[in-house]
């Protein structure tokens, strides 16, 4: 309990820092710490799968994205300071937000006892999915439609990011080209870390069917390794018009849809799996989904095309 209280105070402290810091870069650093502390809170709340996701995506990739943006926007910092709202508005906002927090806190104390839960139902049906991790069973079987639509959400976000490219560079390379310094420390470390990280990513994806982990967490690590390789200049980002890249991006949702539709014939419903093949089918979906998510996440970080394709 003492640990939890200390952790909660720390989380709130960095949250206040994130909101109150004058410097945006400092606020972003606060946010990364916030994500890591939240990951600890998730462990305390017996949600290791969420902890992994929070650390990898909520803090890691999001943090990287925000750090990059804040350094690029640093010069606008002083100009924006003049647009801050006056004390009256700030006070009104503080009162409103205080009321929201107080209301939510009251509701937390009011939640019914015993708490309603779907855990028994999730446990009762898990045998039909062939999986050992109930969270993966929810993501890939009970509520597979959410996961399927979410892969499409990611894809649409990427289409949205790409759509911001100037017309003359359409089909070209995302982001700036980083050049590898053959004697640089970064090149050396990246060459060492990338293969290791890919192994870790595959491992985390693979154990997801029985233990904490899964396609989102594994894919994030794979994405991070690709981003690292791009930033260290080991590889260049691929031009967005490449057919193989497009195939890689849609492979996950496409296979998901295809097996979902096959469910009509095999098990009588969309996204239903026949019991004896359930685990095989789920893994068959998860592999391309992991690769597609990894590619999408990495390209979301890389940004819209900035350099024209070679002609």
């Amino acid at each position, binding site marked *: 309990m003492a640990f939890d209280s200390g952790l909660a105070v720390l989380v709130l402290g960095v949250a206040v820092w994130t909101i109150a810091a004058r410097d945006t870069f400092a606020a972003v650093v606060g946010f990364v710490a916030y994500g890591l502390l939240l990951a600890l809170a998730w462990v305390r709340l017996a949600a290791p799968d969420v902890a992994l996701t929070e650390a990898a995506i909520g803090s890691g990739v999001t943090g990287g994205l925000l750090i990059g943006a804040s350094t690029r926007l640093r010069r606008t910092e002083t100009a924006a300071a003049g647009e801050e709202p006056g004390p009256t508005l700030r006070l009104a906002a503080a009162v409103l937000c205080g009321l929201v927090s107080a*209301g*939510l806190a*009251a*509701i937390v104390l*009011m*939640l*019914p006892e015993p*708490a*309603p*839960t*779907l855990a028994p*139902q*999730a446990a009762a*049906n898990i045998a039909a999915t062939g999986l050992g991790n109930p969270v993966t069973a929810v993501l890939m*079987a*009970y*509520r*597979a*439609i*959410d996961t399927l*639509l*979410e892969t*499409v*959400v990611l*894809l*649409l*976000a990427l*289409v*949205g990011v*790409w*759509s*911001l*490219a*100037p*017309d003359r560079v*359409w*089909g070209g390379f995302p982001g700036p080209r980083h050049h590898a310094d053959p004697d640089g420390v970064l090149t050396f470390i990246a060459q060492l870390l990338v293969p290791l990280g890919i192994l870790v990513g595959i491992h985390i994806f693979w154990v997801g069917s029985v233990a904490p982990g899964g396609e989102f967490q594994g894919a994030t690590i794979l994405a991070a390794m690709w981003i690292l390789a791009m930033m260290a200049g080991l590889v260049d980002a691929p031009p967005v*018009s490449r*057919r193989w890249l*497009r*195939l890689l*991006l*849609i492979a996950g*949702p*496409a296979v998901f*849809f295809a097996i979902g*539709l096959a*469910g*009509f014939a095999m*098990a*009588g*419903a*969309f*996204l*239903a*799996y026949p019991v004896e093949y359930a685990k095989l089918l789920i893994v068959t979906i998860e592999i391309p989904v992991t690769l597609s998510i990894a590619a999408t996440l990495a390209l979301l970080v890389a940004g819209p095309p900035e350099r024209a394709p070679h002609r």
Partner: protein
Amino acid sequence: MPNSATAGGFLLVLAIVLPVSGVLLSLVLGGRHAERIALILMPAGLAVALAIAAAVWRTHNVLQYFVGNWNPPLGVAFRADGLSAAMMLTAALLICGIGLFARGQFPSPQQAELRAPLVFWTLLLAVWGALNAVFIGGDLFNLYVALELLTFAAVPLVSLDGRVETLAAALRYLLFALLGSILYLLGAVLLYGAYGTLDIALLSGRINAGPIAWAAISLMTAGLLAKAALYPFHLWLPPAHAGAPAPASAILSGLVVKAPFFLAIRLWFDIMPRMPERTAAQVLGILGAAAILVGSVVALRQVRLKLLIAYSTVAQIGYLFLMFPLAIKPEMGHPWNTTAWTGGVLQAISHAFAKAAMFMAAGLIAEALGHDRIAGLSGIGRALPITVFAFALGGVSLMGLPPSGGFVAKAMLLTAAVAEGQWWWALVILAGGLLAGGYVFLVLARALADASQPLTLLSPISPSRQAVVVALALCAVLLGFVPLRPLELLQIGRPDIAIGG
């Protein structure tokens, strides 16, 4: 409400799978094929929407599907009632019309892939799939994903032509939409914490009027209002809708803002029909009334045609929310029997057709003139008579003049307001109609005036595109022949429970 999957339920799956698989195919095959894929899927999707409507009408019951054969609360249900069927049909007709119109604006490139056509055709299908997912979603979290799908499909449409001011508009739209989503999600979390399910049908049986339920519904409603751009959350809408290319504006103003309104109906009339609350409903009504007055007055002062139409959307969204104080009457029985409920839904549908037609007409005018300043419209009525006629037809529906869907909708709201003795809403409806008459007349007077010097059109406007615009405007007019009473189709599948006083 049936407690198992119904025959024909697979149609609901198709309504999502068809457009979304089109998105995937367009990305792989590239921008040269995106248009063709969309054109093939448009009639197919329309057929699915018609089949769903026919099935709902024939069985007089909800069409239901349990995805993966997992029953709620563990699994996710798709459900189509009469309201869903009507909205899906509206969406299908509009998407088809907008798609045909957009062929002239985003033609397939001959050689290399081009950015704008690829993005437009892909996102047109994505919006369609997302809307269908919203209209048939039976689970609050699945609906959250559907709303995000819609947001990510809609935001890039705003900045499709890459002008600087549209980037700012798109970013502001995105920030409002994200705030809306997170508030909605927070409400859903509280409901799950209290009742252990996210399924709308199960929730409506378990919910009771306590602080948790009220907090949840308030948070979700606030989030949806931000997404629907109801006053005072309307500031993002005009620059976004006016800055987008015309077919995209038609999608955004006609369809996308209707999705959060639709979900507000689900919340207020499906999840909590047994906990009527007049005060909260009055607040929604007051915001709606403010939207009507503010939106219309600001529309009157616009100098650019597309901004005028966008501010008129702000006003017309206000009418939608008048249905809440007028339809929620604990002592009167089922709210969906009332003329106000039907009027509100009809307003959403007829505004969709009318506003899409007006935005596309404005797009044609801007293409012909090279600008959309209202002061410079003189002579366009002679040059593009069909387009201006379509604009006028849409305007008739906005003003609420007969015969038009807008007339029937507003007449129903007006009747309800008078019958209820809530005469203040009647005043607002009438004032809104007069103001709409003002801004539509302002445009038409300019357009029909003779030009001081002969008008030279920058580019010829194809008759087929004008025909599409007129066809959509005529749909809005045809809705005017709907009888002035609660519609049977819209009531199919409404929860059949007594309303406690």
